[in-house]
């Protein structure tokens, strides 16, 4: 207790020297929590958006389906399993037929993925109700990024070409029945959504599908021939890997900031031990053991981070709270990033993140404070009293 009291007295007495270190360290606290909060918020938002727009509770994939290999699309479809017909009829499972095609907007040629979906589905946030066919045309919905890329607007007609199951090319005029805003590029960029029955007709694949989107988790359901079930976590694993890889930049920044803060403390400690030799000698002469002086200096160094946490809280809590409520505008569009990213990111600052960061910084500060302080234990007090560098 005495060591804490003396350390605080020494720190506060040192004035500007202490506060400069504390302010630098408090920046590190706030920026570390801020960057981690953004990643956490991005992760949560991306997961929520992916679930809302693309994944739902899980998917059955046709055994040949590989979303990363468009060449597999020709063969990766099959009849909807009989076991699931009831679910499909009640829309608790939504079949999606996927194939390749070519769009010809404004005389350009654009390869696209054509997805057929049931217009009355409610598992995904896609505005598929707009796909209800009107007589004599083929309605389609596209995302805003796709619309911007193709310069298509609602009500426009555009030529779509595809190959049916026999390999025969065919083409038709489709009408853009709706344009939706989404943060999920995998349902937007290069994607065009048609009514599934229409696509089945165009492909000559009645009652077939490529994937089946489920409204509840079927992980424990019996295995179906030719269909593989992927639960929500499995479907989200890719995005988590991407966020983690993008988070590496954050970790580097985190490391740099932590190192800067630690250098400030380490530097102060090393300088203190050289500059305060007389003081160290005096402590010993007045009755402290060298071990007690080591503890005093270690606590003094570590207390920088305690003061920094308090100072950081003073300006960091209102600043970060405001950001968590109002969000941070992201200048890039989600398609530039390749994964779900909203125009506004809402950082998430969990109690675990804050206490974890404070504890890590406190621990590292204590270590870098102790490291140079160990030298005190080897100081000769009579030499230290004279202020001789040892």
């Amino acid at each position: 207790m005495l060591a804490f009291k003396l350390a605080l007295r020494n720190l506060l007495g040192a004035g500007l020297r202490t506060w400069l270190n504390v302010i630098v360290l408090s920046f590190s606290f706030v920026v570390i929590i801020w960057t981690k909060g953004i990643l956490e918020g991005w992760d949560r938002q991306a997961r929520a958006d992916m679930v809302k727009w693309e994944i739902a509770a899980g998917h059955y994939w046709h055994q040949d389906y590989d979303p990363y290999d468009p060449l597999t699309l020709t063969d990766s479809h099959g009849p909807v399993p009989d076991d699931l017909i009831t679910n499909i009829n009640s829309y608790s499972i939504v079949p999606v037929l996927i194939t390749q095609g070519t769009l010809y907007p404004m005389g350009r040629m654009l390869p696209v993925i054509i997805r057929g979906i049931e217009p009355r589905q409610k598992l995904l946030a896609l505005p598929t109700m707009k796909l209800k066919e009107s007589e004599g045309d083929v309605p389609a919905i596209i995302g805003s990024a796709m619309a911007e890329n193709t310069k298509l607007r609602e009500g426009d007609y555009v030529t779509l070409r595809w190959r049916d199951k026999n390999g025969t090319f065919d083409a038709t005029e489709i009408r853009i029945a709706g344009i939706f805003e989404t943060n999920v590029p995998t349902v937007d960029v290069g994607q065009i959504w048609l009514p599934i029955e229409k696509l089945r007709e165009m492909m000559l694949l009645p009652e077939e599908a490529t994937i089946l989107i489920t409204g509840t988790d079927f992980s424990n359901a019996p295995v179906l021939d030719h269909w593989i079930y992927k639960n929500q976590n499995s479907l989200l694993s890719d995005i988590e890997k991407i966020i983690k890889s993008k988070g590496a930049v954050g970790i580097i920044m985190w490391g740099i900031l932590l190192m800067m803060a630690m250098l400030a403390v380490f530097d102060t400690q090393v300088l203190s031990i050289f500059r305060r030799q007389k003081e160290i000698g005096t402590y010993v002469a007045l009755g402290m053991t060298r071990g007690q002086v080591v503890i005093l200096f270690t606590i003094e160094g570590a207390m920088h981070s305690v003061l920094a946490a308090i100072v950081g809280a003073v300006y960091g809590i209102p600043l970060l709270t405001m950001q968590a409520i109002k969000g941070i505008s992201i200048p890039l569009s989600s398609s530039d990033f390749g994964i779900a990213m909203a125009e506004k990111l809402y950082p998430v600052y969990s109690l675990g993140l804050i206490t974890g960061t404070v504890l890590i910084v406190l621990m590292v500060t204590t270590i870098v404070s102790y490291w140079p302080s160990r030298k005190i234990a080897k100081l000769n007090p009579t030499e230290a009293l004279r202020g001789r560098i040892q």
Partner: protein
Amino acid sequence: MGSGKFTALNGIDLLFGEGEFAGIIGPSGSGKTTLLNIIGTLDSPSEGKAVILGQSVGNLSPGASAALRKSQLGFIFQTYNLFQVYSVFENVEFPLLLQGIETSKRRKMVLDALEWVGLTEKIGSRPAQLSGGESQRVAIARAMVKRPAIVLADEPTANLDAANSHHILQTMEKLNRELHTTFLFATHDEKVIGYVRRKVFLLDGKVAKDEIIEKN
């Protein structure tokens, strides 16, 4: 080049009693500071025996010697060695904090000590705001506040002018008489030599002369 060994003290046989006001006198390098450091348990003799208040310095553990310094020994240094970031009050309070004395008693003891040296009006000042004489008086108060048995003063007047030197020497003499604290000075300053009642002359690490002065 030598072996790196240097004999600072050799064949010293001295006994200081309670309430002495003694000077260890000699030129630079004569061993007076080394002797003071051994008495102060900051150093220990490589050979022989030094007994301080009944305890052999060489046999003391670091904790025991620190405890002895904390309770029984006061130090006054040539360069004052005040804590620059503390106020006068906090500097004088420091030895009492180490002893764990309670706040109200501590405050009274600090104020008493500052009164002895005539610095009660400077209680909130920082050492940088004090003159050399005032700083040394704070150092005396810090050494005396815990009522030690022995005060060790290493060249206490070396950085002071004549008037301030006499002032602090008179203060220490008064404390010695009133509290019966033993004062041991390491010095070659004539002003200090003029005040002490026992003069131990050191030369090349040996006692050249041990003289007791009768004063009224």
